[in-house]
């Protein structure tokens, strides 16, 4: 039996060859494409929820003490575990602000972005890009989604359980988190979410190592696959300490242990005689040991998406592919040794801070290399400015601002002024919001035809892009100045402080930019849904791309490829020198 016939698409679901039931096909599927779509849709919903939380907070920030319009009294309801707003007036309460803040961070990082870029794009695209029929462990893949969804639902349910949602920041520092309400459900949810990522990461690593098509050597992999590969290692190695720490914090809350609680705490005027021997700093180290690599998990797949879209829309190979690959690997390795730059102000000595400053400065170098390679890739191209390319190119200067603003934070002396101010919020949001999220938008516009067989509307895409780009800058650029002037993070009412009074005006501008950003997403949401029905139908390769996923039908059937692909060339063979054709797909033999 030829290799081709062996991989003919057929139903693995049932040994008798019957079509799988609705549940097996769409809900409990082991097909990486279905799971990818499940992750993506769930992630997009949580992205929306996380964004909505922030929009309510922005009202309080712009107009402190004013009742929240429309939904103010609704959020004081008895069906919430703890009131977010005051029942009588509809004003956002400080505990509601802190709960929304903690949940905004948690939802965005763990329930929206990572599931989208790794679970969504990674799951759908990686097996296709390496010419595989599915992931190495399809059932494990399904299990990882079904740990993620319950974890996400439990986290969301925390708003409705007694005590309400967690309110100690997504960072959950002890002792505050140990003595605050809502934290227990947060910790249980984190255990589920982390388990999901661990299971998924194993799958990605094994799949990429073992299931590459014939001829697809490591240095012929699309950069997106490299990004997911390094991301897999980051998730696998960095998450276990946080899972352990979450269990330890649970035990401090429920079992009377004191992993993170020192002796002699006086809580609310009374000596807490049940604590002793623990260290709050231990939590910080365990948390940031994960959370720093986690931020590279947030950015690497997005860089991968941007690389794919740029190569495709410049009609030439990426510049410096090798440098980019080595940089991604080096970045992954370095990300494990920089974590304590989040802890410079904890009383760190000169030697330890020197170490972490140095590693943090060093880690900026591979980031700059990847970014610069992507910019130089534009040189000599024939740049098509379609919707995915608009987002992919805008990613570059946005990530640049994010990366550059990391510099004064990486240096301990300047961090004295900037730590825990709005400067930090501006810095990391530049990387994740007009950074990763632009990568996500680029990926959605780019791979939508592969998933659905139809194109999204170009005009709506452009209408989506421009206000989004402007509003993102309108939100996060002023924050850098608010931080420099001296405004602390997580501040329910800035006008309490002299510095806050000076920058309260910026809060108003930022809030209006945020609400406008919300409105700017409407064309995208409309586009997303109507294109399912009335988007232009396409065959396999509407973008005239070279990578393997474009050799499969749109959408690919179960088993992906009609015949097993064989790879003959590098991933971005656009405008091959000395030939008059525009591009050569990876699986096209030399003689064609």
């Amino acid at each position, binding site marked *: 039996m030829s290799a081709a016939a062996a991989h003919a698409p057929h139903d693995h679901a049932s040994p008798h060859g019957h079509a799988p039931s609705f549940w097996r096909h769409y809900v409990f599927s082991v097909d990486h494409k279905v799971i990818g779509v499940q992750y993506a849709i769930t992630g997009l919903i949580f992205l929306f929820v996380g964004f909505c939380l922030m929009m309510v907070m922005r009202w309080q920030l712009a107009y402190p003490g004013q009742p929240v319009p429309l939904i103010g009294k609704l959020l004081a309801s008895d069906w919430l575990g703890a009131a977010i707003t005051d029942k009588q007036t509809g004003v956002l309460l*400080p505990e509601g602000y*802190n709960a929304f803040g903690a949940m905004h961070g948690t939802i965005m990082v763990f329930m929206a972005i990572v599931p989208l870029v790794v679970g969504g794009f990674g799951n759908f695209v990686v097996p296709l890009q390496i010419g595989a029929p599915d992931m190495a462990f399809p059932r494990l893949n399904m299990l990882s989604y079904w740990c993620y969804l319950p974890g996400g639902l439990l986290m969301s349910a925390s708003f409705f359980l007694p005590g309400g949602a967690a*309110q100690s920041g997504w960072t959950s*520092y002890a002792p*505050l988190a140990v*003595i605050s309400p809502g934290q227990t459900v947060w910790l249980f949810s984190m255990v589920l979410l982390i388990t999901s990522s661990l299971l998924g990461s194993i799958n990605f690593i094994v799949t990429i190592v073992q299931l590459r098509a014939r001829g697809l050597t490591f240095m012929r992999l699309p950069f997106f696959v490299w990004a997911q590969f390094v991301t897999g290692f980051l998730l696998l190695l960095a998450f276990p300490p946080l899972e352990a720490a979450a269990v330890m914090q649970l035990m401090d809350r429920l079992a009377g242990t004191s992993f993170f609680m020192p002796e*002699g*705490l*006086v*809580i609310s005027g009374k*000596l807490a005689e049940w604590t002793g021997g623990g260290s*709050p700093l231990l939590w910080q180290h365990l948390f940031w040991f994960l959370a720093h690599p986690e931020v590279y998990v947030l950015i690497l797949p997005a860089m991968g998406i941007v690389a794919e879209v740029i190569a495709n829309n*410049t*009609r*030439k*190979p990426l510049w410096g592919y090798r440098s980019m690959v080595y940089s991604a690997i080096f970045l992954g390795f370095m990300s494990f040794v920089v974590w304590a730059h989040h802890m410079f*102000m*904890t*009383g760190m000595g*000169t030697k330890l801070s*020197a170490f972490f400053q140095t590693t943090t*400065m060093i880690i*900026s*170098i591979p980031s700059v*290399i990847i970014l610069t390679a992507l*910019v*130089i890739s*534009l040189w*000599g191209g*024939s740049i*098509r400015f379609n919707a995915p390319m608009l987002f992919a*190119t805008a990613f570059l*200067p946005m990530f640049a*601002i994010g990366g*550059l*603003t990391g*510099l*004064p934070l990486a*240096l*301990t*002396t300047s961090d*004295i*002024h900037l*730590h*825990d101010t709005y400067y930090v919020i501006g810095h990391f949001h530049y990387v994740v919001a007009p950074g990763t999220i632009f990568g996500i938008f680029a990926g959605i516009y780019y791979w939508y035809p592969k998933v659905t067989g139809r194109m999204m509307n170009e005009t709506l895409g452009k209408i989506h892009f421009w206000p989004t780009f402007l509003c993102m800058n309108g939100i996060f650029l002023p924050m850098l*100045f608010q931080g*420099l*002037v*001296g405004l*602390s*993070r*997580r*501040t329910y*009412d800035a006008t*309490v*402080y*002299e*510095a806050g009074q*000076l920058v309260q005006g910026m809060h108003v501008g930022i809030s209006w930019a945020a609400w406008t950003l919300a409105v700017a997403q409407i064309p995208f949401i409309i586009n997303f849904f109507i294109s399912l029905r009335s988007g232009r139908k396409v065959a396999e390769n509407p973008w005239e791309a070279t990578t393997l996923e474009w050799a499969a039908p749109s959408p690919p059937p179960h088993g992906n490829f009609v015949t097993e692909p064989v790879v003959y060339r590098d991933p971005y063979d656009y*405008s091959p020198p000395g030939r008059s054709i525009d591009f050569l797909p990876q699986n096209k033999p030399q003689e064609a």
Partner: protein
Amino acid sequence: MLLAQSRFWLPPDISTHGSSVDQLINVTHWFMGVLFVGWGAFFVYCLVRFRARPGHAADPRPIPAKTSKYAEIGVAIFEAVLLIGFSMPAWAQVKYQFPAEDKALTVRMTAEQFAWNFHYSGADGVWGRTDPKLIDPGNPIGLDLADPHSADDVVTVNNLHIPVHQPIIVQLSSKDVIHSFWIPVLRVKQDVIPGMSIPVWFEARETGEYDISCAQLCGNNHYKMRGRVMIKPADEFAKWLESEKVSRPLQPADQEFEL
């Protein structure tokens, strides 16, 4: 009270060490600006010059890499200079070169949800004994009033009175959760961690009253955990210290009683 403060950039610096912080922030931002403008100009140039248009195919020949390599090396060298020439020595000085204890005024600070409690040792230079079991609404640090050393102690809430032109050492601790002691105009920030006593030092060059902010989420009133640092001439400070001693007896409760 408030020196001319920019709405966009750093607050005034009235400390003796703050110039190294400000210099690093300013130099780093110039560096960031140069990089962003240079790199950004190249970026925009590419977008315009290499946009797809009729008669303009992509040029697959690789561009010479020399400029970017030298630029990259230059960036790395400059970062090393910032790190080794500026940040590391400044950090060592700011955080660890403490003034001599006999020249400095040392104050103990115990943070709690949501106040900064300051404990001065007074003329005898010895702090009265404190015990968490003695904490009550009027006695936030649990000062043992029976200890003779307590007689000249001063306990203030949220108001750090200090003399100008004298090094100050503050020993920071917390009763309950992590706070962060931040005086922006003095370029002092230090996390306050329960179970640890962490010292900071600074010296003010000008008198006045400025904010103390909490720079670490500590609960639902974190946003209102605002203290004030009152910097006075040395003789005014000495007079204040004398007048604030804790040993005034508490009045009997007849007039103010309310159920």
